[in-house]
């Protein structure tokens, strides 16, 4: 993953040049681009320079190098009325184009827990705890600051989930640039296409066949009729290689279907002001979004909220990651 932090002092970087101007005790210094050559500038020239520089900053904010296989999601308002967060606003973030593959998992964790094996298949059968560990280990491996503090010796008092026998206390390092799970709001904002949203029901289309692997199309034969596990099992349904369906408005693949994706949040009740719930209830766990190869169509809708105990591991449960700047 490429470094994304602006390198101050790099004369080829217009942002750095602009920062030099702003931070200089003497504002009328010679600028590398040769645009300013004298201290005796007229106020009009200074205004022109300011506008020019501000324009460069604004443009550069988006031309900033985005990590490989990530998309920078420009923040804003949830403009899809189908979203649980309609009318709320959200900040910029980076999110992975694809679900984490088994290759990516194995490189970091040294094992492959997936039921269905294949390098380009999404990793499956990973718990929420497994995933936050992955995030931190990958951050360390790549020289980033880990986003999570994981205390394995202290039970999380907010975790009331009856069947969760792990209950690590996991807190965040706000501002750390390491890998992390998306919040539910971030996931949903990205799934709906952010500012480019066309208001689709599934991520990238109203036609589930175009964008998602789900119970009807993820096996040897196309299934019809009603969802029925024994039929699905006999049809050898399973995960599919990442990125084989159409992407959504942002270029994100498999947001609907393939594997369900863990989010940071407790399931709880969605708070009216859009802030993530801070504790579990006795029979819920962490949020997953997007549905998977095993579930029904409604699970693949971008607005659907699923819950699973944080220690749960299923052959349809995976994740994708976000990153700070």
């Amino acid at each position, binding site marked *: 993953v490429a470094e994304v932090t602006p390198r101050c002092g790099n004369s080829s970087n217009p942002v750095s040049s602009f920062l030099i101007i702003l931070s200089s005790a003497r504002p009328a210094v010679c600028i590398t681009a040769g645009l300013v050559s004298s201290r005796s500038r007229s106020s009009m020239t200074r205004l022109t320079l300011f506008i020019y520089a501000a324009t460069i900053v604004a443009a550069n904010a988006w031309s900033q190098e985005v990590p490989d296989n990530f998309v920078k999601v420009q923040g804003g308002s949830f403009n899809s009325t189908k979203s649980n967060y309609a009318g709320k606003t959200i900040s910029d973030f980076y999110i992975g184009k694809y679900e984490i593959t088994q290759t990516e998992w194995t490189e970091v964790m040294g094992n492959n827990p997936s039921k269905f094996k294949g390098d380009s298949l999404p990793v499956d059968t990973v718990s929420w705890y497994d995933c936050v560990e992955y995030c931190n280990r990958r951050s360390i491996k790549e020289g980033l600051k880990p986003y999570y503090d994981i205390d394995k010796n202290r039970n999380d008092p907010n975790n009331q989930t009856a*069947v969760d026998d792990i209950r690590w206390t996991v807190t965040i390092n706000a501002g750390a640039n390491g890998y992390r799970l998306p919040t539910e709001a971030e996931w949903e904002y990205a799934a709906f296409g952010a500012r480019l949203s066309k208001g689709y029901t599934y991520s990238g289309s109203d036609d589930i066949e175009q964008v998602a692997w789900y119970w009807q199309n993820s096996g040897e034969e196309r299934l019809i*009729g*009603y*969802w*029925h*596990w*024994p*039929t*699905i*099992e*006999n049809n050898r349904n399973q995960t599919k290689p990442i990125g084989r369906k159409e992407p959504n408005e942002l270029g994100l693949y498999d947001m609907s279907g393939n594997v*369900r994706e863990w989010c940071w949040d407790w399931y709880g009740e969605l708070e009216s002001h859009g802030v993530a719930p801070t504790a579990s209830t006795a*029979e819920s766990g962490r949020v*997953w979004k997007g*549905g*998977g190869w*095993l*579930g*029904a169509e409604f*699970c693949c809708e971008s607005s659907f909220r*699923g819950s*699973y*105990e944080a220690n*749960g*591991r*299923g*052959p*349809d*449960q995976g994740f994708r990651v976000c990153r700070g700047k």
Partner: protein
Amino acid sequence: MRHFYRVKFRMALMLASALLIGVTQNSIAQTITTSQQGSHGGYFYSFWRNSTGSASMTLGSGGNYSCSWSNVGNFTAGKGWKPGSSSRRVGYNCGHWSCNGGGVFGLYGWTTNPLIEYYVNEKWGSSRPTGQNNYGNMTSDGGTYTIYRTQRVNAPSIQGTKTFYQYFSTRTSQNGSGNKVITFANHVNAWASKGLTLGSHDYQILLSEGYNSSGGSNATVWQQ
């Protein structure tokens, strides 16, 4: 001209016959041996069997169905409705039930949000079905039922892998023959009084299930 009308009459006759076949085809008895779901005779039906032993389901007219199974590992079969309903009064007549080994006969269905599987067990095979947790007894339709709850951990579901609950109302003694009624609302209310709530209904069927057993059943379901 007369020939023209004769041709028209024959065509009309053929069309009427085709339509009649189309209308009645769905209510003609048919036997199935592979797992499937669909509609037949105006009712939703579901049949599933695993690969051990043999089992078949014959779809009769209206709400009637019959099953036979031999040394089966597990099978389920039944007719009913999709979606189910908490207020439905389910009438049934079980003309035949024999089960040499494990099996149950009764009302089965499931809901989403929360994901719940439920059973109202009217008859069974060699042993009375129970559950992990006992929530006491209730009465309905002239019988006494015990309420149980069992947790299924990391099991496949319509939402994907899920930990979810099964609710059971099991009669303290098997129900008899003749026309019977399951006033499902009584069970729903009794479960709710114990904190066992249902979600949005998916399908709801009169179920015949066998596991590690041989047997047969013939039953008809209707809405009271």
